[in-house]
Each structure stands twice: as structure tokens, then as C-alpha cells.
């Protein structure tokens, strides 16, 4: 399956868990809820591999709505989405800091806010 043309890199693959709805990321092996553990694609080939993994997991009824998002890499190596929409998706509602990934992965959220 063809990857998006001109997909800005680096990128990570984000999706929702089919059963629970939680935001999940493609990791080196399987899926993770921790954005810091997301596999980072730095070239087209790696991005296409992520998309293939997403399509396969979609076909196995594990996830839904998988797509690539472009990220900046922080000094600690963690990916932060460039678009504000995807930043909210990886963090949680900005009006409820006690909910979502920002509450679960406090260190990630604090650094992402900077």
C-alpha cells in the first residue's frame, strides 16, 4: 500500500484501540500507550513500514483510524507532534490536565508543554 506522498518526517503512527478507544502508538514491536515508546520513522521506507503495520492491525480488528503524524524529536528523544490537534491527541484535553496521557505520563506532558 502506498504511503502518503511527501509525508513530512520524522513521523509516528497513531491509532485508537478498537476495544477500549485509547490512543495507541506503533512501537518497535506491537502497540504502546506511551508516546515516548512510539517507533519513529525517519525515512519513507520506515514510514511505509509503520503504515503496513497499521493496516495489518486494522485487518486483525486490533485498532482503528491509524495514520501517520509528523513530529519533532525532543532532546530526550521523545516525539512531539508538530500539529496542535495531534498534540492534544497525545496529551489529553487541555482543560482537564487530570485526564488522558498527560495524567499518565507526567514527565512527557511537562516536557511537551515547553
Amino acid at each position, binding site marked *: 500500500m502506498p504511503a502518503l506522498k511527501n509525508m513530512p518526517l520524522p513521523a509516528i503512527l497513531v491509532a485508537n484501540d478498537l476495544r477500549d478507544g485509547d490512543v495507541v502508538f506503533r512501537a518497535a514491536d506491537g502497540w504502546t500507550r506511551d508516546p515516548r515508546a512510539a517507533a519513529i520513522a525517519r525515512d519513507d521506507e520506515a514510514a511505509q513500514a509503520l503504515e503496513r503495520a497499521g493496516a495489518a492491525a486494522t485487518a486483525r480488528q486490533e485498532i*482503528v*483510524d491509524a495514520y501517520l503524524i509528523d513530529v519533532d524529536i525532543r532532546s530526550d528523544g521523545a516525539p512531539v507532534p508538530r500539529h496542535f490537534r495531534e498534540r*492534544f*491527541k497525545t496529551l489529553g*484535553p487541555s482543560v482537564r490536565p487530570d485526564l488522558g496521557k498527560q495524567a499518565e505520563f507526567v514527565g512527557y506532558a511537562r516536557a511537551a508543554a515547553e
Partner: protein
Amino acid sequence: MYRYDEFDERVVRERVAQFRDQVARRLSGSLTEDEFRPLRLQNGLYLQLHSYMLRIAIPYGSLTARQLRQLALIADKYDRGYGHFTTRQNLQFNWPKLREVPDILSLLADVDMHCIQTSGNCIRNVTADQFAGVAADEIEDPRPIGELLRQWSSLHPEFSFLPRKFKIAVGASENDRAVLKAHDLGVRVVRRADSGELGYEIHVGGGLGRTPMIGKIVRDFLPRGQLLAYVEAIMRVYNAEGRRDNKFKARIKILVHEIGLDAFRDRVEREFAAVGVAAAQDENEELTRIAACFAPKPYARLLARSDSFEAAKALNPAFADWTESSLHPHHVEGYAAVTVSLKPIGGVPGDMTSDQMRAFADIAERYSFGELRVTHAQNLVLPHVKKDDLFALWRMLAKSDLAADNAGLITDIISCPGLDYCALATARSIPIAQAISTRFADRGRQRDIGPLQIKISGCINACGHHHVGHIGILGLEKRGQESYQITLGGDASENAAIGELLGPGLGADDVPPAIERIVDTYLELRNEGETFIDTVKRLGVGAFKTAFFVGERNEAA
């Protein structure tokens, strides 16, 4: 309140079992996501930004204390301890799990509730005047018509795969509190001046969203007993001819606009003649059966004036402030309908915690025959409170942080969930509402400004009704940033109007000062006793544009 009979109960129970089976088929791969989506949407289940979201139907905005307690239980057991009331009088939970939704639906069925058709391209949950059955100015309680339509439209074999969603609102008063004219179909009970006969005025083709339109009258008097036949005719014409080539042109308002009201009316009348009204007697019988559930409450015989209420107001200015914005005339002497604002200063509009739900259920049982209402402005109403009880009620509300004294004022802001939750949103809405609310927190200032409706949507779909806000705010994306367009002069009442764009989009931080400049302009230009919307209508948006731009320059400098 309507109570399910054995048939209604079996319908929702079967529906729960059906959805359980549909979920199982989805998880096994029998159904693809594309096939499952319309099924889950017709059960109110969305996939949002962070999670699934479940939208629970609150037909015509009426709830009982028992139902609210059950919602609190669901919030605690299956969600994160809170819910969000919407502009369509529904309640949303933001964190349910797909695999648990059948269990949630089962708990809802235990209290005569469901999520049927709160989303999807079908006839949606019917909304109504929040003061239905209470208001001194209504011809009759419109909720039985809402219930009649709810039943008729539920799991409709022909109209469950429409070109697009279809929203119905009902009302029975000259004063439109249900935004009838912004609905695909608005039904208003009217009385013929000459004969006194009751019937319906039918509005069609209203709607907000990408192409906002005010509904038009397709029938000025439809006799009793013919409502379902007439609505069936409208739905059949729409289902057959509504556009399906472009999602953004698929609402009935576009069909009415493109072929013209007269041509649309001709088609509907022709279809109506073919449908026939042979079932008119059935409809009237059914309406009578339903109406019996909405019989008047066992009110006490009271004097119109309550001495204890007047005394409490005189002694307690904070209470007096609250009564000033919260009370609506009740048709029974000695009673009032009380609006309970879900807009504490700086809070999330329409959110309520499970603890508040339980406390409010107790309050409703103690002071309002166990009944409450949800308003399209994301507030609650206690419909039947003795004036003698108002002071005690206010103190109890305050204990649960539910005594905000701003209903109808500038900080009583409608806001959709926006990009904090919604997958469709282009920008956040709630933080804008919070910032404006905080800026105008002072009660004296709010009272001086008077009635003013700010409505915020986080995308063009306009769930926050921004088009009909006196001040409307629309959140968009502009060059990778959240950007907000401001409109003026929208009106959600019987004088419905679409707001006019004031100028180019603003960054989030610039919105509260811009609102302040608009309000200051109003304060400067208003005549004695003139409301904000009347001043805008008298002077036009132009008068505010100048101030808006001048202010922009000054602040940029």
C-alpha cells in the same frame, strides 16, 4: 413524565441485545469499521480524539431524579466521574470503552433510557422548549408530541439511512426557546384565531453548520392527527431527493434551497396525499395516551406572592442576584421554574460531576416532584419549585457548587467540546469560554450588560450554535494555529437570525479583549433599557466593526 410501557421497554431491551451482537460481530471481523460505523453511531457511539464518546438521549430534555442518579452511577463505574450536557439536550460521556458500552446501555434501559439515534444519518433525538408543561405562555405541553415523534422515528425501517442527520424540535409558544428555526424540522403547536382549533405550524429547512439557514414555514396549519403522516411525507421526499453526492450539501435545507420552498411544498403535499391520513384517529388516541403521562403535578394551592421569598431576597443580596437571573414564570401561582446554571465562572460549560448529579437528584426530589430538564443552553431546570422553597433550594445548590447566578448573562456561554475532545474540531472552544467567563466574572458588570448570549463552536459544524449567538465565536485553523472568527447579531429566538462576520480571525488570546471592546461599544451606544441584541439590530454590525478594528490597531500598537 413519560413512563415506558411493556412495549417501549421491550424495544430498548431488544436494542441492547442487538447492539451487543453488533459489537461482537465487529470484534470478530464480521463487520468492517465502515459497516459498523453507522450502527454504532445510531447507538450514539462516536470515536473521538482520545476515546470513544457515548451520547445518551434525553428526549425533549426531560429527566427524572432516578435517571440522573443512574447517569451518575454510569459516570463513576464506566467513565471518569462526569458528563457533559449538549446543545441538543443530551448527555455525553467522554471515556467509555466499546466492549463495555452494551453494559452501559443495559443500565440505561433499567431507567427507561437509551442512546438510540443520538447520532448517524437518521432522525435524531427530539428536542423541546425546556419550560414545556410549565411556561405561562404556552398553548399546551409540547412534550407528548415529542414523545410521539420519538417513538415513530425510532428504528424506522425506511428513514434510518438518510442523506444526512435530521433534527426535530417541538414547541408550543410564541416565544421560541427551542431554536425551532435552526432545525431540519420545527413543529410548533398553534391555535387558530377564528375557530380555536389546535394544530401545528411546520418549519422546515433550518440548520446551522457550513451553510446556516433559518427554517421556512412549509405548512402554516396542519390539523391534529395528521402530524406523523405529514412528517412521513417530508421524510420520504428528503430520503429520495436529498443530495448524496456531497456530505456538505446533504441536509434538507439544501434540498429546500435548491428546488425552492414552493416546489418542495408541492412534492411534500403530493406525497402527503398519497400517504393519506387514514391513521389520524390512531394518532390522536396515541397522543392522548402519551399526554396522560404528562398530567399536571399535584401542586399545592398557594398565593402568587410568597412572603418568605420576598423577605429572604431583601435580607440576602446574593440570593436576590441569583433569583434575578434564574427564575421563569410558572403557570401555577406560587411556583417558579428555576434555571440552574452549569456555567460557574471559569468552568467547563455543561459539565457536571457524578457527585453533583446525585446531589441534584436529591434536590429535584425534594423541591420539584423529582423532575428536571436539560436546556439547549447546557443548563438544567427545576421545573416546579414553590417560591416558599427557593431560599432553601438556593442554599442546597450552593453546597454542590450549582448556584451560579449568571443564567442568561454574558458568562452563560454555550460551548461545544471543541478540540479538547472532538475529532472533528478545528480548534478548542472550552478554554475560550473559560477565558471570557473569567474576564466578565464581576456580577455587577454582568448585570449592567444584561442579557447577552455568547455561543462558541470549535468547527464549522456549529454544535455550539455560534451562528445564532448574539456574539458567535467560530474556532478554525489558520496557518497551523487556532484562529477565531467573531460574528454579531445572531438570534436563536422566534426572531431567528444568522450573525454577521465582524472581521478577520483572531488568536485565542485576542478573543476576550475583542469581546470586551464589543461589549463596551454596546454600553456606549445603547439606548435606555436596550438589550445588546436590540442595539446590534438597530445600529447594524457596522457600528461595531469600527470599534473592533480601532481596538485591534490600538492593541497591536
